[in-house]
């Protein structure tokens, strides 16, 4: 089976102006949204408390909220998480109460009306409860699924470290590509990466999706993926510059992108297959991660075709830049 019967002959580079406009518009929307709305940071970054509980039967979030309010826990955001039996409770960091005790208070408040106290249960099973008079009642009506508490001092550090990680990754890549290829390629690759990261973040900002630690990991994975794609194209460009003696720079680049097109499409397809699997079957917690990858892989594929090579072209690459440097000691050899 083949996606393309023959080597394609699309004029990708000829469309670079249209591509530039598309990219600029997307970037402008992303930057604008990031500037105005910002990202919907999760508690990993802002600090706060998150409690996920699961009831034996469907439950009304309003009721959960009122139980919490009765126990003196107001300012809680209560919502469904996946199903109508699963409830997610978020508590912001409250002045004077930046302690880990609050998550405990939430779980205890929810168990209170049912009259259950946690009993020790085997690892890997459901939680078991005792009634308040000490009798084991078996599986708890309210199962504590997950608690995350992040103190205000941790969140700030993470934002800083996340930004730095991205910067270090870009610098590392810049250096590697500059050594293996040429500085224009290095800049082209990094431009494409910044483009991908900004637009992925932009999508998260526009749709107000939660930006959590796993999403950050996904964005960094997108850098890896998109780079992979870009390098494959660049590799072919380098190859063709050395091989093809005729043809303009634009023609050679176009050729290269077309030659690598089947692989670009194919790898995107297999990667998207697994990313979609993660999105649909991986569960609620992995959803943000998978969404970021989905957006990133699509944008990354686009950028390796329409952004990276045009950027190198606009930086003024010429055939001479890519010819192998004559080795020392063989200078006298006449070039054929």
């Amino acid at each position, binding site marked *: *089976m083949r996606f393309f019967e023959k*080597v394609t002959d699309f004029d990708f580079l000829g469309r670079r102006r249209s591509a530039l406009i598309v990219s600029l518009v997307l970037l402008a929307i992303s930057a604008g949204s990031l500037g105005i709305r910002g990202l919907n940071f999760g508690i990993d970054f802002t600090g*706060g408390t998150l409690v996920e509980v*699961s009831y034996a039967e469907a439950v009304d979030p309003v009721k959960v909220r009122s139980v919490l309010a009765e126990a003196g826990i107001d300012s809680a955001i209560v919502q469904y998480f996946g199903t109508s039996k699963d409830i997610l409770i978020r508590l*912001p960091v*409250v002045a*004077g109460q*930046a*302690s*880990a*005790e609050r*998550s*405990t208070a939430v779980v*205890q408040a929810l168990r209170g009306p049912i009259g259950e106290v*946690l009993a*020790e249960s*085997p*690892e*890997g*099973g*459901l*939680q078991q409860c005792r009634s308040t008079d000490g009798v084991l009642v078996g599986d708890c009506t309210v199962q*504590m699924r*997950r*608690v*995350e508490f*992040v*103190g*205000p001092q941790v969140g700030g550090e*993470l934002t800083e*470290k996340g930004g730095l990680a991205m910067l270090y*990754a870009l610098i*590392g890549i810049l250096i*590697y590509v500059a050594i*293996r290829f040429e500085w224009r390629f290095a800049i082209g690759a990094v431009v494409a990466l910044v483009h991908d990261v900004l637009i992925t973040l932009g999508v998260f900002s526009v749709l107000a999706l939660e930006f959590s*630690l*796993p999403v950050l990991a996904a964005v960094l*994975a997108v*850098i*890896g993926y998109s*780079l*992979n794609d870009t*390098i494959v194209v660049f590799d*072919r460009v380098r190859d063709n510059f050395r091989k093809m003696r005729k043809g303009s720079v634009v023609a050679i680049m176009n050729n290269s992108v077309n030659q*690598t097109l089947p692989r670009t499409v*194919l790898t995107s397809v*297999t*990667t*998207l*297959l*697994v*990313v979609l*699997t*993660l999105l649909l*079957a*991986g*569960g609620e*917690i*992995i959803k943000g*991660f998978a969404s970021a990858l989905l957006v990133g892989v699509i944008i990354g594929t686009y950028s390796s075709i329409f952004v990276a090579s045009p950027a190198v072209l606009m930086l003024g690459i010429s055939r001479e830049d890519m010819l192998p440097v004559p080795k020392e000691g063989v200078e006298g050899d006449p070039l054929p």
Partner: protein
Amino acid sequence: MRNHTPWWKWLIIAVVIVPGAFYALPNLFGDDPGVQLRGARGARLGTAELGQVQKVLESSEVKYKSAVLDDRGIRVRFATTDAQLQARDLLELRLASGTTVALTLLPAAPDWLSQVGALPMYLGLDLRGGVHFLLEVDMQSAVRRAEDRYVADLRSTLREAKIRYQKIGRDGSGGITVVLRDPAVLADAVDEIRQTLPGLVIADAKGSADGALRVRLSDNEVEELSQFALEQNITALRNRVDQLGVAEPVIQRQGDRRIVVQLPGVQDTARAKRILGRTATLEMMMVDEEHSLDAALSGKVAPGSKIFRFRDGRPILLKKRVIYSGENIVDAAASIDTQSGGAIVSITLDAIGARINQKITGKNIGKRMAVLYIESKSTIKTDVNGMSVKDADGRTIRVKQRIEEVITAPVIRDQLGKRFQIEGLDSVDEARDLSLMLRAGSLAAPVEIIEERTVGPSLGQANIDQGFQSVIIGFALVLVFMAIYYRVFGLFANVALALNLVMIVAVLSLLQATLTLPGVAGIVLTVGMAVDANVLIFERIREELRNGNTPQASIHTGYERALSTIVDANLTTLIAAIVLFNFGTGPIKGFAVTLSIGILTSMFTAIVLTRALVNFFFGGRRLKDLAI
């Protein structure tokens, strides 16, 4: 001959794949519910205890699969969780007090595998359930305590040197102020301090305008102090965690003021938090029975006395003089009083405590003695936005809270000595927590939980199931797609992909790196991306064929040409993965680890393994065309 794989390449493949498959093997067996026993305070359990465990279980007819003794204690396996729970209760009751009995999951792989180090992957807390805490040590408080000690040292040093001082005390700005009677002996005082207390630095050796000396701890001293506080806290936390009954706790320092505590399988996080964070002590005081409580409540508190409160709020008047404190306690154990049926804590004192106890109680039979529980907590001060408030030096400001509760104030019926009991506790659990706190030693500096991640057991299981399912589905989709798209060559790629998965599992098992949910996502992503190397090669082969080359030549050049592209593309991705790893906290690290391993193994399987397969089936034959 073209496209022939030399024997040594086959050997490399065998050397990589056979052990890989072997080390991945233990993951197929799953887990048994089990119980792990450890001796009190790290004491070793021996064959005597093993025999005792077997006898206890057999006499109560609790069926177990096996019971083994090793460096980590005794581990007993069961077929069902019911037997596991029953056994735990039995053993806790029958074995010597202090023995930790913890529920755990034990890998069900046969022993001969674990003996050669083949263990299943180590699952992170998000997959197996449990608590992760990040604790921050309050170093300012450790420094303040040290300053208090130095104030006392300064006083005695100057006294011994016969240098008279007016006042020595901690000042508000983080230092100690020494005011001398006679400014003329300033130089002597400076010399004396420098000689006997090298941990101190004198800010202005000539003395300030008001004739006072300002002294502070040297940076070196503060450094050492922090180091000590951190180590001492880790030791104390380890003792406390041991009492919690956790099978494989992790307690590690992180940076210069933080401690990571991971407790797999723990669900009662309220109790875990209470026990980890507390700095509790007891003080014994006499009840003031000469003065009226009512008078004291109306404001006329007799000098030397103070009003304290019971837990339920009842007031009581105590003499402020502390008879002895928690430091004199060497052991504490919770039990149930056979006569009253109430919860009690039996306490054993050291020699000094015993002597004082004997003297005081002997003199005061018929009077009441109170047991005061003191707990100090410190929390970070926050502003209205919930951000921590910092002082001028950028340090977070903490608010101290001191909880004082009278537990009980019984009448002394007899002269007490080395051992005695505290009654009046609400429940057995409370008695257990109190005894633990008294036994486990105090923290050198208060700690605060700054991050908590708890995953309940049902979510852990759901995460495993969903993660596993995603890997299977994603893998199957890619297999089908590749087989359709590349036909026979697609099958080669699929063999490589399957072995790639085996190798990732093998490397993770061998390194015993923690597999987290993002780690599983990393594996899934690797499955999608691992075929990329083969795609690059196969597309090159197709190109060569299209250019009119013979099948054999196409295979040869296809592999050759694709090699540098594969290396470049994968190495750059690896750079990103390594940065991720270095930056990463828990979950991100897991992702970076599986991604990096996946990149390396996929390069091997794609370049070496599929080549060998292609050569084996097509190499050295006359081919008209290729099934690609």
